C-alpha cells in the first residue's frame, strides 16, 4: 500500500491554493479536513475525494446492471447485482424498479412492457432516485441503457438488431426489447 494511503480519521494534507470542494471519502470537523475512508486522496479538478473500489449501494446517477425478476404492465422489478462497475458479493443484491414511464425517452405513452423486457433479461440502467423503502428507481431512457443480454424463446443468446429489436441466431426470429446500444458502435 502506498505511503500516502490514509486511514479514517487521519488529517488530509491539503495543498495551498484555492479552497477545495470536498467529494466522498473525506469530511471536515472543527475546520480540519480528514479522511473517512482507507485510501489515497485524489484530486479531480478542484474536488478532493478518496475512492475505494468496493461493492457499495446504488446512489442517484449510479450505473447499475441487474436481471429482471418480475414484470407487470406498470413496472419491471430488477435484482441489481453490479453497481458502478463493481459486482456485489454473491447472494447480495439490491432491488430496483423500472417504471413504465422511465423506459424510453420518446413516445412514453405508447410503451408496452412486454415489448421492452422479459423475465431473466440482463438490463443496464441509471439510478434516478433512492425510491421507496423497497426499491431504487431506475431509468433506461438513454441510448446506452436497456437490455444488454437476453435469451430467446428458443434458448439462444440474442443479438441486438435495433434499439427495439433483438434476433435469435438459432431460429432467426426477432423479438422486441428495449436494447442498449452496444459499446463501440
Amino acid at each position, binding site marked *: 500500500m502506498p505511503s500516502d494511503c490514509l*486511514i479514517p480519521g487521519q488529517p488530509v494534507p491539503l495543498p495551498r491554493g484555492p479552497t477545495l470542494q470536498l467529494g466522498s471519502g473525506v469530511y471536515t470537523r472543527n475546520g480540519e479536513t480528514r479522511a473517512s475512508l*482507507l485510501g489515497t486522496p485524489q484530486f479531480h479538478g478542484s474536488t478532493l475525494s478518496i475512492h475505494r473500489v468496493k461493492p457499495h449501494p446504488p446512489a442517484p446517477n449510479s450505473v447499475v446492471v441487474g436481471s429482471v425478476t418480475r414484470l407487470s404492465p406498470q413496472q419491471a422489478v430488477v435484482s441489481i447485482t453490479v453497481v458502478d462497475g463493481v459486482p456485489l*458479493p454473491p447472494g447480495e443484491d439490491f432491488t430496483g424498479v423500472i417504471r413504465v414511464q422511465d423506459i424510453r425517452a420518446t413516445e412514453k405513452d405508447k410503451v408496452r412492457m412486454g415489448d421492452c423486457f422479459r423475465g431473466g433479461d440482463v438490463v443496464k440502467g441509471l439510478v434516478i432516485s433512492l425510491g421507496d423503502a423497497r426499491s431504487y428507481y431506475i431509468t433506461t431512457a438513454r441510448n446506452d441503457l436497456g437490455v444488454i443480454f437476453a435469451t430467446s424463446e428458443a434458448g439462444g443468446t440474442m443479438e441486438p438488431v435495433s434499439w427495439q429489436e433483438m434476433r435469435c441466431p438459432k431460429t432467426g426470429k426477432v423479438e422486441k426489447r428495449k436494447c442498449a446500444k452496444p459499446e463501440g458502435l
Partner: protein
Amino acid sequence: MAQSGFDRRRVNGPSESFQPTFDDGLEESSDLYDNWKLGEARRKRHPGDIRPIFLQTGFIKQANGSAYIETERTKIACAVYGPRQSKSSSYHETGRLSVEVKFAPFSSLVRKVPIRDAEDRSIANLVHQALASSVRLDTLPKSVIDIFVTVIECDGIESCVAAATVAASTSLAKAGVEMLGLVVSCAGAVVGEDVWLDPNEEEARLASGMLLCACMPALGVTTSVWQTGRVLPAKALLSLQLCQDRCSDIHQIVALALHED
C-alpha cells in the same frame, strides 16, 4: 451445568450434563494467581501492560471486510457485510448498524449451550455503542451494515469486548464504510488500589470493579464508557485516562495492520 432442552435443529446429547468437579475442590484452576493476596503486585505483566495484539485483515474474501484478532488466549474473528439493502418496511434516511456476537460453545471453560441468550445480546450492544458514533451512517440511506463477530476463545469477558470492538472497526475500514475515525477499546480492572489494563479471566475475578472504554484516538474523543462493580470516582477517572492512553498504542497497531494490504 448444561441443561439443554431438546433442540430439534441440532444433534442432541443427554438432557442433563455437568461440568467435571476436580479433586482439588477448586472450580477453576488458578495457575497464575495461586496464593496471591490482595495488595500484591500483578503477576507476569505490569499494571499498564496489555497483551500483545496480533491483527490480520481480509481473511474472509467473500465479506466486504474482515479481521482476525488474537491477544494471547483471546481469539476473535469478525466479518462485515454490506452496506446491504435494509429489509425494513420503512424508509430510513440514515443507515443502520447491526452487530451480532456469537460465542463458540468451547470458547470458555464452562461450555456455552448454543442458544442465543441475553449475554450475547448485551455484548453486541456494547460493541454497537462503541462503533455507532464513528460510522457516517448519513451516507448510507436505506442500507444496513451487518457486523458479525465470532468469539473462538475468551480470556476475560471485558477484554474480549474490547478486542471485538477493535476487530469490528478494522473490518469496517477494510470494507470501505465511511467513518469519522477508527475505534479502539481497552478494559481496565480495579484490583485493590491498582488498575490493571487488559485483564484476563483470572484477573477479572480478582477485581472489585471494571471499566471498559472505547475511543477514536485520531479525534481525541471517547465513544463509549462502561463501568461495572465497585469503583471510586477518582479510580474510575484514573482508569479512563490509562485506558485512553493505551488506546493510542492500539490505534497504531490497527493502522499498521490496515496498511499491510
